[in-house]
Structures are given as C-alpha cells and as structure tokens.
C-alpha cells in the first residue's frame, strides 16, 4: 500500500509561548512533529508492513528546520519525502494556502491514501484535511480512531469519533484520512532506523516550482497572551468535611452554581 503522510513541525507542547508581533517568539522552542501527525506516520508505516508492500512518502511544508522532523519520520520507517522548503510561503500560509501547496506536491505521487493529523497543535485550525480532500477531489474522513483497509486496497472501513459516540464508515480509496489520538501508539525510531534515514531521498521543492500562486485568505492582525490567572484562595478547615462544607457554600453563594 502506498501512502502519503503530511506532517507539520510544531513547538513541543512544553514550550512556553511568547508573543512577537503577529507570531510567536522563535527563541527557546524545541521543534517536534505535531502529535496528531505522528499517529498518521505510524498508521501509514503499519499499513505498509501489514500489506508487506508499498512505500510511505512524507510531504511537509516549512523552512530548513523541518528536515529534522522529516528525518525522524524516515527513521520511524517512512521511505522518502518531499520537503516544500519555502519559508516565505510558510510564514504567510493559512490552512487554505497550506492545503494548496500540499495538494500540488501530492498530485504527481502514486498513493492509496493520504494520512495527516486531525489538526496541527500550533495553530489548532484543523482545516487542512478537509481542504486537501476537496483540492485533490478525494473523499475525506476526519478524526479517525480505527482503520481497516480491504485486501484489494480499493476501500477501507474507518471509525471516527463523533459527539457522544462513534460512527463506522465505508470509504473508497484513495481517500484523505485524518488521525485522532487513539488510532495507534507511535513507535520510537530505532538506531538502525536513524542511520538508514540519513540515506533516504528527500526531494526539495518550493511553492513557485509547484505552480502554486494562491496566497492566504486569512491573516493574523494581532496576537496576545491570555490574561494571567491569579491564584485564588485556599480553603482551610479542620478536616475534609469542614473544607467540603466551605467549598459547597462558596459554590452556592459566591459562584451561584448550586
């Protein structure tokens, strides 16, 4: 089974975010693969292993630093990559512009499915999967937590999360599938995997070379930090019962929620 996995490099979740103009300050950021994209990489590798055939192609948009995350995915077991190394395009890209460039990079490839995370954990937009499907003219299933591909690779049965439950869907392939937590447990790259990854091919492109001229359709005008929360009061009392009575009273009289 041939798959394409789109991945985004994002600040690690431990990162303390500082604002710089209409973006975040670049200092002190540890860059990692967005966690939902890691599930996508893992699922693609598992499909290849299960079918015992095919290859996994990573596609990523971003500046030079992104190559480290691409190499990580290659070390996990992906086979090759397309790096749209275009910092100028990336800096302005909104989800629509990102989907445009990913679609252009994917169009020439041979694949049975495109995997990616349900959202990137930096901008949290969650739009690229559906937009990519639309641009590629493929069906889309978002928030996938279980996937079974038919032996002929012509269709798949997928389970996705909905509010208060799950829905099981039949989807023809190729399709765009976005990964939700719970789909799998991503592996760590092995040492031999890391060594092999260094030799795997990475095709470097830019947005202009892919024929993409569409600019972003949304723009960030201003960025700010949320107002800092102040510590409130510690409820004291002789025992749990006394403290519980004090809290219940506060929820009743001050918060007025009971």
């Amino acid at each position: 089974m041939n798959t394409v996995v789109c991945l985004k490099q994002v600040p690690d979740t431990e990162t303390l975010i500082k604002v710089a103009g209409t973006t975040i300050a670049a200092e002190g950021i540890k860059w990692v693969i967005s966690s939902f994209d890691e599930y996508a990489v893992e699922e693609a590798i598992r499909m290849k292993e299960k079918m015992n055939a095919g290859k996994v192609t990573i596609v990523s948009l971003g500046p030079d630093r992104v190559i480290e995350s691409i190499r990580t995915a290659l070390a996990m077991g992906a086979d090759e990559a397309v790096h749209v190394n275009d910092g100028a395009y990336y800096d302005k890209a909104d989800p629509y512009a990102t989907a445009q460039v990913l679609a252009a990079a994917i169009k020439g490839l041979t694949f049975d499915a495109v995997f990616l995370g349900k959202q990137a954990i930096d901008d949290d937009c969650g739009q690229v999967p559906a937009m990519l499907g639309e641009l590629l003219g493929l069906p889309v299933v978002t928030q996938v937590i279980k996937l079974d591909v038919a032996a002929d690779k012509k269709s798949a049965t997928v389970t996705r999360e909905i509010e208060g439950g799950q829905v099981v869907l039949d989807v023809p392939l190729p399709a765009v599938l976005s990964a939700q937590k719970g789909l799998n447990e991503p592996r760590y790259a092995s040492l031999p995997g890391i060594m092999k990854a260094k030799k795997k091919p990475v095709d470097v492109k830019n947005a202009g070379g892919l024929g993409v001229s569409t600019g972003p359709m949304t723009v960030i005008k201003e960025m700010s930090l949320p107002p800092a929360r102040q510590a409130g009061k510690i409820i004291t009392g002789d025992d749990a019962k006394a403290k519980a009575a004090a809290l219940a009273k506060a929820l009743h009289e001050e918060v007025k929620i009971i």
Partner: protein
Amino acid sequence: MPGTLIYAEVQKGEIKKGAFEITSKAKELGGEVSVCVIGKGAEAVAPQLAKFGADKIYVVDGPEFENYVPEAFVQAFVQVAQKVQPGVIFCSASAQGKDFAPAMAARLNVGAISDCVDVKKEGDKIIAKRPMYAGKAYAMVESMSNPQVISVRPNALGSKEIAGAGAIEKVAVSLDAAKITVKVKAVEVASTTEPDQTEAEIIVSGGRGMKGPENYKMLEDLAKLFGPTATTGASRAAVDAGWRSHSYQVGQTGKTVSPNLYIAAGISGAIQHMAGMGTSKVIVAINKDAEAPIFTKADYGIVDDLFNFVPALIDEIKKIKG
C-alpha cells in the same frame, strides 16, 4: 450590504445550542440573518431560530440527512449559499462543525477561520478572536475571502433572545449521489446523556491522583449533582494510563474547554492541561500536594486527599440542594 448565513446543526431531532448562539450574535452584528438548517426532522424545530434573530430560515429536511456525511451536507448547504449570497458564513465549531466548515469553505474556494471565541465587525469585515497553542495565545484574525467563513466555539458567546422575522422556506436540494462515496455503516452512540466536554457548563475532571479507573465513579456522581449540563473529564496522564478514553481528555492534545466551573481532582496542572482549561470561569483544584502548580491558577484550592474530600463534597452539596 450582504447578509449572514448560518449553518444550524440538528442532533437527535433538536437544534444544537451553538446555532442559537451564533444566530443571536449575527443579529447583534447587523444585516439580514439567514439560517440554513439541515437534518432529518429539521422542519419541526426550525421555527425556534426566529426568537434568536433569524430573519430567514432555509430548511433542508429528508431521510438522506439522518446521518451526517460531509459531502451530502456540503452540497446541500452550498446550494442554499448560492441562493443567499452571504458576505459572512458562521458555523458552530462543534465536532460536526469542525468537519463541515473547512470542507464547505474549500467547496466555495475560500479560506476559513476556525474555533473562534469572539467576533466583532469592522465595516463589512468580521474580526475573529481565536485561541492558538491550545489557548496559550490568542490571535485576532481577518478573512480576505468572500464569503468570510467563520466557526465559533460552542459556549463562547452565550445566546440571547432577540427577535428575527423568521420567514421559513423549505428548500429542495438536488444531491449529486455519485459524489457521496463515504457511506455510514453503523452509528454507535454511548448510552450517556452527558454533554460533550466542549459544550458542558460544568466539568469534574480527574488526573493521575485518581489512582485507577474504578475511582472515576465518584467524579461521575459529583458531576450528576450539577445537573444535565455537567460532565466528567480527565488529564492526559489518566488517559495515557488507560483509565479513561481519549474523548475525555482535556488539554493541548485533547479538548480545549471553557466551562463555568472546572473541578480538577488529583491533577497537578501541567502546562498542556492548563492550556486546555485555563479559560474556565471558575477553577476548583483538589490536590494533596500543596505545591502543585494548579493552585497558582485555581480560584478555590483544597489541599487534601481527594478520596476523603470528594465524598464529603458530595454530601455537602446534597445538603444544600436538600
């Protein structure tokens, strides 16, 4: 001036409250407010939108809209959008809205702004406020596209009653069935009647301090005391330990929530968790470690063993409620 078109979601035969919230907000912002309600049974409930500010209500009803599949709903909505020619389209950023909005925007060849917590108007432009990095930062975003597609987080705006003309028009849409290739095989709805965490007004959440899956029963009992708008949540540590399913996870790789009351039991308050619940109106933290970082953000802190405290709290709330 071009008006606003709203996508109203129907679930279990009811209009989701997020639709009322965005409809009344759109009315407040000005211009004609049209609402498109799609779903099986939509016709029966559509008139409710009038008292939240809907001037025109387009109803798309039929058995083919019983279960949501994006292609069918996008096709139907786009036909209504072509009729209305709105300058702004609002959706709720519910689980379904998050799937629907970008697909619909792409079909209209425009961009979208997702999961906003506030919107204001500058001329014909909507400026939307949205969290990024799971709430560690906020961005003010403007759309250059026409129409501007914006999804708004449930609970963020609140709804208010504001009268609209409420003219109802039933729309017969023609679906291109050949394009609807994703088929629903089964829907498994959990027996719970609890609201989704993103829409709950009260969340009782448990972390590593819960020590095991069996102890969540007392958090469920506590949540039940607050009524049908309350639910339970969990920290990443509890989810990764397998005590609760991922759908309960609050935080950067789980759900971002903003309830009126968030009770954190046995949660230390890692930066990723705080990002996901930091905009809760009132935070109560229960932890036996007085140094737990969550106490620096909590409105009410209780330093105690949760296994003693939570049952005591349940008793005390029962007393107040009589």
